[in-house]
């Protein structure tokens, strides 16, 4: 599309966006949703399969209780009502990565309904309504070989891997979110971030967008103020938090330009492109499939015992938002400082570092400073940077004990991140410890004085500032491992001058 897009400020001044998010979360249960196959990531294609997840004739599903439990816990954490009786349903459509050519899902009887999730955007709380949380099975993965696009059309061969088929998938659907205005992209991102943190805190999924264990579809529409909501598009292939924000923004701009030109928005699925940041049309809903949903006759209805649900509710962990508030207080941070901790994804890391013995200030300094900088540079998540909270705490202990200067500590950290071992190991192996042995330091000072008699004389005669050159010489001979202040004091002392 070559049309020039209007400016974002202009768009939000004239149109009101309504967004909605559908999120799929792969549960980290040990086994698949309806069979006993393992769920771990990877593995040779079609090695984690059995008659059930291959949909072989005669096979039958049996619901995974752990997956039902995880879904209920997600529902409870999202303030949903838990159905006392609900059913799985078959969603019928033909696609080669669906072994049975229907997906066992839930339709009009989801496990959890009508909840909400509070998120913070620019210091304000926005309440996102949750329409439903339901449980279904994942599909396999199709690889289209040959052809230019890697899509099914034009491919000469299609290869299917069913390892992922049948992995429990939880779908979380928001109610439409109107009224976010210019902040719509940020609200979308904040929601997905918060949802990810909530689910992670429950320990039911590793919620990694890059690995596809958290997938997000974004619905966007625009309308003129006071008018009915516009036609929405559904953007898929949104694979990072940043992309969630970009996808909403880009779709708002695109729709505005279509509407400005007097056009109409087509209800369709669009694909987000990470590289260009824009969306292109996918399958049009004009050829919408009739999924012919009906209750899954191979499974008995789910009827979670209310006492069990109450137990699960009572056992929910402290949810991220409340935990953040508590930590902010404990750490004595301003709203703004806490926000930067959250944005850096450092809450858990700092908490663990503090637990390992560091002060909150020191823990925050390392994670938000040196380590965040490295994470940004190398494009990895902070949690995956290669240093653990325990190591950061150890590093700080070495600084506090005077064994490392700040500068040396940064060098040690570099070694830790490079996998050279614990901070103490790196310090020892690289011989980076501060020279605090006075005998060795005195020898170095005396050596410097002997080698620079002119400067020594100047200092003795009262030009104390000239001592800097001697300090430099000592620092050089100790390869920076001495504390400059101590060196200076020692030089003055040896020359009989008051500092």
């Amino acid at each position, binding site marked *: 599309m070559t049309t020039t897009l209007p400016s974002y400020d202009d768009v939000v001044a004239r149109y009101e966006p309504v967004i909605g998010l559908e999120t799929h979360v792969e549960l980290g249960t040990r086994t698949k949703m309806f069979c006993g196959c393992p769920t771990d990531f990877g593995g040779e294609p079609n090695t984690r399969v059995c008659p059930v997840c291959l949909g072989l*004739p005669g096979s039958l599903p049996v619901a995974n209780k752990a997956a039902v439990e995880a879904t209920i816990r997600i529902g409870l954490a999202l303030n949903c009502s838990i159905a006392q009786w609900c059913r799985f349903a078959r969603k019928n459509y033909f696609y080669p990565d669906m072994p049975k050519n229907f997906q066992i899902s839930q339709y009009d009887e989801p496990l959890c309904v009508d909840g909400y999730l509070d998120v913070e955007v620019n210091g304000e709380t926005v309440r996102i309504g949750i329409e439903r949380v339901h449980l279904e099975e994942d599909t396999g993965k199709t690889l289209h070989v040959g052809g230019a696009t890697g899509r099914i059309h034009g491919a000469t061969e299609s290869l299917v891997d069913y390892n992922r088929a049948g992995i429990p998938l939880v779908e979380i659907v928001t109610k439409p979110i109107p009224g976010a205005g210019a902040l719509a992209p940020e609200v979308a991102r904040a929601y997905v971030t918060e949802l990810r943190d909530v689910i992670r805190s429950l320990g039911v999924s590793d919620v990694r967008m890059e690995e596809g264990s958290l997938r997000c579809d974004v619905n966007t529409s625009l309308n003129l103020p006071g008018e009915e909501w516009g036609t929405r598009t559904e953007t898929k292939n949104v694979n990072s938090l940043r992309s969630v924000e970009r996808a909403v923004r880009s779709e708002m701009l695109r729709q505005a330009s279509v509407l400005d030109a007097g056009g109409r928005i087509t209800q369709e699925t669009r694909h987000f492109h990470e590289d260009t940041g824009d969306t292109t049309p996918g399958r049009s809903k004009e050829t919408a499939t009739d999924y012919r949903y009906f209750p899954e006759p*191979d499974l008995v209805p789910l009827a979670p015992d209310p006492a069990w649900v109450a137990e699960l509710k009572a056992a929910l962990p402290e949810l991220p938002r409340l935990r953040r508030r508590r930590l902010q207080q404990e750490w004595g941070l301003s709203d703004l400082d806490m926000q930067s901790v959250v944005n850096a994804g450092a809450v858990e890391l700092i908490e663990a570092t503090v637990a390992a013995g560091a002060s909150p200030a020191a823990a925050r300094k390392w994670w938000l400073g040196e380590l965040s900088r490295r994470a940004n540079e190398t494009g990895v998540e902070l949690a995956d940077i290669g240093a653990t909270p325990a190591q950061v705490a150890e590093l700080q202990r070495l600084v506090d004990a005077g064994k490392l200067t700040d500068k040396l500590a940064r060098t040690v950290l570099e070694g830790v991140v490079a996998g050279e071992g614990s901070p103490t190991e790196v310090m020892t192996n690289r011989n980076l410890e501060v020279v605090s042995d006075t005998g060795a330091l005195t020898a170095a000072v005396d050596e410097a004085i002997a080698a620079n008699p002119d400067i020594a004389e100047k200092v003795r005669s009262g030009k104390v500032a000239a001592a800097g050159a001697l300090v430099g010489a000592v620092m050089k001979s100790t390869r920076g491992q001495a504390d400059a202040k101590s060196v200076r004091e020692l030089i003055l002392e040896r020359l009989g001058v008051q500092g």
Partner: protein
Amino acid sequence: MSDLTTKTAAEIAALVAGGEASAVEVTQAHLDRIAAVDDRVHAFLHVDAEGALAAARAVDERRAAGEALGPLAGVPVAVKDVLTTKGVPTTVGSKILEGWRPPYDATIVERLRAAGTVMLGKTNMDEFAMGSSTEYSAYGPTRNPWDLDRIPGGSGGGSAAALAAYEAPLAIGSDTGGSIRQPGAVTGTVGAKPTYGGTSRYGLVAFSSSLDTPGPCARTVLDAALLHEAIGGHDPRDSTSIPQPVPDVVAAAKLGATGDLTGVRLGIVTEFAGEGAEPGVLAVFREAVDALTKLGAEIVEVSCPHFTYALPAYYLIAPSECSSNLARFDGVRFGLRVGDDGNRSLEEVMSLTREAGFGPEVKRRIMIGTYALSSGYYDAYYGQAQKVRTLISRDFTAAFAQVDALISPTTPFVAFPIGARTSDPYQMYLADLFTIPTNLYGGPGISVPCGLSDGLPVGLQVMAPTMADDRMYRVAAALESAVGTFTPPAL
């Protein structure tokens, strides 16, 4: 025909246990019989002589080693080709699965092996169990041993014919709308549909999941009970399986065989009377009712007003479920694949495979079911049919508050000539008129031979409350003790 092939399963098991006949001898006798008559009967789609003899040898070795043998050890059994058998072809009577050898055994097949029975092979059936005559098998019809020009019933005509032709003393069937009971009736054999959930569906290639019920077929009520006991009971791999022990059907069959039904109340459904069963069938049924009265049973008439809607409800629910269950047959992972020439798209290959692989009756039901589930039609068809199903279940519950069991003719007509009803699906569907309500309700039903009409067998159906399968065995065994068993003319 060897003596061994005319024995009941109970008799064979006793011979094997007592060392009077080896399991290998018994098996060989049946394999010989199959070799002698099956080219005319065509009860089997696949005979696994090697596997059968190996299983028989294992039984003989266990006996020689002094191991305790179960009540059916060494007894041959024929299995309807609807159940998966590891490494043994399983076609469901369809071209779309020709040559498929499943990598796993159905639960029932596992239990048959564990019981020491000897699987002779797989029996013919209407394609995907859709039919009442076995004429819709993609591999040609099975013939009724009573008259080779007539149908053996369906869909499990192969299993029933194998029993009537003395090719096997026991067989497994599956009953979605009458596919065990109706073939039993028209071949003069016994066929029982257990309570839904009383026998595992794991490994049963699905036609209609909420109705399909595997069950026993035999020549005597006691044999059917013994087989029922061996295959029944909870299976954690089938979510719809009932977590309760099998009702004591064997004891009930033995009790019934004493010929005393004093204090038993049996109901005749008023609404079935006007449903146009053949006069000959009705006459034999009335004689059977008299016989039951003489055994001490009290006969009363009960009304089940919604049974009239059973057939239309069934022909919405079963095709709806089948349209979804049969979607997996697409040529991608197993079975037939047509048109994969490197030029056609995946969708085209799927379509061509299904076009070539499914027969006309299967396609008809897939289309009816697809339509009935379509958005905009769901409530009027599938939804409405489910409501009727609930009403029919209530009729049964109300009836069983008055009587211990219900009785009826199993099927409105005796075995009809091959080809007589294939041109009119509705005429074919009528064969299951009296058996379908039980499937919609989920309770058990049994067909037991009760006489002959113009030289052809007539069956009497006993229907009992869910998980009261023992009750129907008692009544059936009592009737059997009064009217005897029926032997077809020599082949």
